[in-house]
């Protein structure tokens, strides 16, 4: 299988997940609305709310992420390798030069954000810049530029907002269960249907945050493999990224600047120490295991 068909397959699958996700949000909002007796007005509020927050994340997402991580602009003299490597790979990928930022932290990590290649930002920690050789850094930056070129950075911001919206709705519903009961007391004919909807509503409210989180993770992990493959195609040197990833595994430091909201943006999972129960860890990881990524890169 070639890189191009793999990219195509991954992109298609991701859009399928996205469409399913949007349908899911609207259905949940509809069921919740009907079961609470608000009718479809509830759904329209949800749609309006998610559209407004989507626009906010679309236009200011990159600035919000940078502010959250405390990053400062990089300069050519001080961060020569970072600066020039990013320039070179932007040439190779046919992209405009991304804006570059540095986080002053000895933990090794990097991420990309921005809604399209023209507004792209690549951010690296001082730890990763000082500990990687130039060819290894090329692999990492190529990985980040691939996220930009594939519009992962936009996609991930939108998915994050959708997940946030669903969690917010579920929360609101559970509160309304107690406060809003009287609203559903209307004619007796509606009662039977209303009660079935109520049960479905409760089930959805409980399942929603879990499903939403799992979808977010699945999208993110698939995109990591894709970005690795595109990075290898860009540098024509998969060994560089493979070695960089191995060095990153060896780094046990936790990046303080990362939060749950920004974890999926980074090249490797910033919360290294945190381990979930064994059978759950495969599901609740924003990134595929590094050993697996290295193995695939070495097989190219």
């Amino acid at each position, binding site marked *: *299988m*070639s*890189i191009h068909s*793999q990219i195509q397959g991954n992109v298609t699958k991701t859009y399928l997940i996205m469409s399913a996700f949007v349908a899911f949000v609207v259905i949940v909002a509809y069921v919740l609305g009907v079961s609470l007796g608000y009718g479809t007005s509830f759904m329209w509020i949800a749609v309006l709310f998610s559209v407004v927050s989507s626009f906010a994340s679309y236009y200011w997402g990159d600035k919000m992420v940078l502010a959250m991580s405390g990053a400062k602009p990089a300069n050519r003299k001080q961060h*020569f390798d970072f600066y*020039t490597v990013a*320039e*070179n*790979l932007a*040439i*190779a*990928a*046919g992209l405009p030069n991304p804006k570059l930022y540095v986080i002053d932290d000895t933990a090794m990590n990097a991420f990309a954000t921005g809604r399209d290649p023209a507004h792209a930002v690549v951010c690296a920690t001082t730890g990763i810049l000082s500990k990687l050789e130039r060819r290894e850094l090329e692999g990492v930056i190529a990985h980040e530029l691939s996220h930009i070129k594939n519009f992962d950075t936009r996609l991930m911001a939108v998915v994050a907002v959708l997940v946030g919206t669903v969690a917010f709705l579920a929360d609101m519903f559970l509160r309304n269960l107690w406060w809003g009961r009287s609203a559903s007391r209307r004619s007796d004919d509606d009662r039977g249907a209303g009660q079935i909807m109520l049960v479905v509503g409760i089930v959805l409210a409980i399942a929603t945050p879990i499903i939403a989180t799992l979808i977010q993770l699945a999208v993110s992990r698939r995109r990591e*493999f894709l970005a690795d*493959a595109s990075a*290898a*195609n860009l540098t*024509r*040197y*998969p060994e560089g990224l493979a070695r960089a990833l191995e060095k990153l595994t060896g780094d046990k430091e936790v990046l303080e600047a990362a939060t749950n909201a920004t974890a999926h943006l980074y090249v490797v999972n910033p919360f290294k120490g945190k381990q979930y129960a064994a059978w759950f860890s495969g599901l609740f990881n924003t990134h595929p295991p590094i050993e697996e990524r290295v193995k*695939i890169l070495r*097989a*190219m």
Partner: protein
Amino acid sequence: MNILWIVAGLVALVAVYFWSLYNGLVSLKTSIEEAWSQIDVQLKRRADLIPNLVETIKGYAKHEKTVFSDVTKARSAMMGARSLESKAQASDMLTAALGKLIAVAEAYPQLKANENFVQLQKELSDTEDKVAYSRQYHNSLIRDYNEKIRTFPNTLFNETLGFHEKEYFQALEGERKSLKVNFA
């Protein structure tokens, strides 16, 4: 009446299809021209670094005259080259001459410790990377373009509309190959 509408719709569809094919080729051709000027910019950048580098090395290794004259010759050949092919050749010559120059410089420990020289060497190897990457991008665009031109239905009209196959910047054999990836 209905049949007329269907026929008109089909004709419109076919027209839109060919229109988008044509536009695709035109924009690819424009990208190729941009990619080519990017290579040109980077080659010029590299040529501009050379006089400074030669001067710095001369300060420590005056008697290595043949190496200096080789580099200078290769550089002026590079500056004089006009066509894609001659530029590619001159660029290869210059790369070889610069390789020798750096090898000579390696023999002078004091030179290697010179801050100016270290910086110039970093800039030079970065520019070599830039040349290589801009060439890689240019050639990958050409590969896409040539493939598109050779396939149906573009083969029917490409010659009449002035889309001809384009040549790569240097032979592809020497270039690092595109990778084949297998996912489990």
